[in-house]
């Protein structure tokens, strides 16, 4: 690890006037040796992606480095010409992007896109290129390399697409691989496999990897060294074990403190009868086929799900994308109509109500949505959004606004902000508005659909703590949908694991975590990145 591959020295990158700060990067110095993985960690807006894009010179117009050097194999890339950069990109420096959906051209076959790298940078013949492409696909462990060669991106799964991206980045054996959140868009089990793949190839080829991520679990899984960034500055850098277990900078300590440990919460007594019970709920989607019933494509989104939510507790529904957990949540609040089964809230069967009758039951079950940006109407003031629900139920406007004012205080927002529009709030604050809106109707059951997955880890911790305290104070019963087992362990008394529309395991969180019965649950638990690292508890050997 002696020879330095990439060395960033006192680099500053200027933003155009009118941005939220003057520099995206300010005075950043880093170095990466050949044959090591350096993780750059930070929350959104920390400048970690700008760092990666500066090395690759992929900055948007108007954003330019104004001080410092980027030395790659001893050569400064900042003054390099565009032609020189083109020769380096792909050949000496490979890059993997976050979104495997959009990083591949949907109209060209996967093999063709990998082969393009060879065509641009080498003079190899068609047959040689084909052989090399096939070998690469085998190296990234595609299940069927020959078939993948001919597949269009839409025919591949998210994980497979990311493998194709990795194959493209690796094609010319670059000395440096830049990975910008390569697993963020993937499911947890897929993420585990991709991380293992990157680690394995890195070790085999002795590459240097600059790995950008926001997730400390991923850092614990893969990093040799860690650099922590905040608002464009480097706050801490060091070997992974030291930074993760003995963080020095207060910001790093706060960030790591906000990572939920993969431990079940102390269980609370399951009190009384179920307030919400599902019995045999199913939902199928039909697509296409027109009037001919046999030709439609049928997806069983939810298959015969039976669950019970005891009063005053939180039931977590855990699953990967496509497991049907969101469809189930939408059936419960009747945004979707279940095909069969009963959804009993108290003694009302919600599944059997007409749309009109359901409107009358709206105040009993409410929902918090995932996306803090899309879930608030951009043209309504925050106070109005919260007051809307009670007003629909016939409460007078002044009364509803007074209530909204109380709720703002309850969810930790300044009531004087009621006149502002949603875009004037941060993501975490917006999620609090969404929560206040749901609570305004004093629901018996709160359905929360991934309420923290779009938030930075420190904000996520605050919102989780708020949900937890509100549940105790308001005696709420909560259905908490999440893909993140760490979050589930933090807040749920019981969890149900879903796969392909069916519940494969359900039970108290502690029992499921300690002794998972279903094979899929075990796979999920094992795939949680950095599972053996428990924040704030050093001396646990890294996996």
């Amino acid at each position, binding site marked *: 690890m002696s020879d330095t591959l990439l060395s960033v020295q006192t680099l500053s990158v200027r*933003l*155009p006037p009118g*941005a*939220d*700060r003057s520099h*995206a990067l300010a005075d950043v110095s880093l170095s990466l040796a050949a044959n090591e993985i350096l993780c750059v960690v*930070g929350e*959104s*807006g*920390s*400048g*970690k*992606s*700008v760092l990666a894009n500066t090395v690759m010179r992929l900055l*948007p*117009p*108007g*954003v330019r480095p104004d001080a410092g050097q980027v030395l790659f194999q001893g050569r400064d890339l900042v003054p390099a010409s565009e032609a020189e950069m083109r020769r380096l990109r792909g050949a000496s420096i490979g890059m993997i992007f976050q979104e495997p959906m959009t990083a591949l051209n949907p109209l060209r076959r996967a093999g063709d896109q990998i082969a393009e790298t060879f065509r641009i940078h080498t003079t190899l013949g068609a047959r040689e290129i084909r052989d090399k492409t096939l070998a690469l696909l085998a190296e990234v462990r595609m299940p069927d390399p020959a078939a993948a060669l001919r597949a269009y991106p839409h025919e591949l799964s998210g994980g497979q697409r990311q493998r194709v991206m990795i194959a493209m980045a690796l094609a010319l054996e670059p000395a440096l691989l830049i990975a*910008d*959140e390569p697993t963020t868009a993937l499911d947890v089990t897929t993420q585990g496999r991709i991380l293992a793949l990157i680690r394995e190839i890195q070790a085999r080829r002795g590459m240097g990897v600059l790995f*950008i991520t*926001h997730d400390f679990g991923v850092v614990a899984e893969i990093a040799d060294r860690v650099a922590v960034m905040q608002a464009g500055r480097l706050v801490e850098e060091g070997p992974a074990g030291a930074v993760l277990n003995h963080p020095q900078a207060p910001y790093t300590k706060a960030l790591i403190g906000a990572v939920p440990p993969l431990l079940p919460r102390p269980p609370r007594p399951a009190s009384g009868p179920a307030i919400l019970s599902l019995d045999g709920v199913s939902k199928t989607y039909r697509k296409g086929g027109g009037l001919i019933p046999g030709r439609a494509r049928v997806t069983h989104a939810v298959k015969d799900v039976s669950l019970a939510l005891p009063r005053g507790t939180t039931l977590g529904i855990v699953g990967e994308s496509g497991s049907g957990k969101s469809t189930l949540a*939408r059936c419960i*609040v009747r*945004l979707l109509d279940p095909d069969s089964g009963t959804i009993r809230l108290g003694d009302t069967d919600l599944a059997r109500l007409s749309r009109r009758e*359901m*409107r*009358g*039951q*709206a*105040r009993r079950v*409410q*929902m918090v*949505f*995932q*996306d803090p940006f*899309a*879930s*608030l*109407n*951009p*043209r309504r003031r925050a106070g109005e959004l919260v007051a*809307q*629900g009670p007003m*629909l*139920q016939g409460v007078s406007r002044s009364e509803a606004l007074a209530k909204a004012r109380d709720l703002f205080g309850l969810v930790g927002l300044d009531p004087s902000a009621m006149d502002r529009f949603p875009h004037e709030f941060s993501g975490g604050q917006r999620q609090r508005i*969404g929560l206040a*809106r*749901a609570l305004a*109707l004093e629901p018996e059951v709160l359905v929360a659909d991934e309420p923290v997955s779009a938030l930075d880890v420190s904000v996520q911790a605050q919102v989780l703590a708020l949900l937890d305290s509100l549940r105790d104070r308001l005696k709420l019963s909560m259905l908490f949908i999440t893909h993140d087992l760490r979050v589930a362990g933090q807040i749920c008394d019981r969890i149900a694991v879903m796969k392909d529309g069916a519940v494969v395991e359900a039970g108290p969180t502690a029992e499921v975590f300690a002794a998972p019965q279903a094979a899929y649950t075990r796979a999920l638990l094992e795939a949680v990145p950095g599972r053996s690292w428990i924040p704030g508890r050093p001396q646990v050997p890294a996996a």
Partner: protein
Amino acid sequence: MAALTRYLRNPAAVLGAVLLLLVLAVALAAPVLFPKDPLGLAGRPLQWPFANPKVWLGTDASGRDIAAQVFHGARVSLLIGLVATVIAIAIGIAVGAVAGFYGGIVDDALMRVTEAFQTLPNFLLLLVLVAVFGSDITTVTVAIGLVSWPAPARLTRAEFLSLRNREFVQACRVLGMGDARIIAREILPNALPPVIVYASVVMAVAILLESALAFLNLSDPNVASWGNLIGAGRGVLRTQWYVSAIPGLAILVTVLAVSLVGQGLNDAFNPRLRGPAPVKTAS
């Protein structure tokens, strides 16, 4: 207000606004400057512009004052443009909103009707309507509105399709809000900006459609519209070309002004589509 600042920073858009205000001023000044009937006799026919200070833009083949007709014509053209646009946009929004919001069979049915209208050239349809219902100014205006609604309808439908599944709409449903209220109060305000921008196109086309009708002597002959004046000059086009050219210029300026304003509004509402890409600082 950011949109207003962006609008004022765009020179073409400001020019359009100035021209439009000019046309508006002309329309408002017409009864003051030319209190007499613009279709009344003003002097010897076919006088050249600037030859006689009493009729400074000259007279047409019937001896009517061209200046008076141009000034009064601005009122007629703007009124026709405005009313026809309001009709077209209102029908378009109603059809598009219902089709986009409900989807499925409702959408299919409404879109087939829309396509039926779109497959006919709208000027041909306009001719049919005028031939059947007569050509007084009210009928002409309503007819222009009736042939112009399909495009705004499709635009509104596209906006509704993308907005109806947003989480904020779902949140309103969960709160127990009814469909009519969701459509009118929650989705429509968000869907409106592109439709408003498109209204400028509808207005420009409406003015042109009326002129084209008048040129064919199919518009209301009892009002002093620009199209009528052009139509009146058709017979003397080779010798006294100014009879047609002056109102033609007025139409050009008005349509240009409306288009520039529309384009400027579009750029102001969607700043991302112009100029350098926005800076992304968040990862």
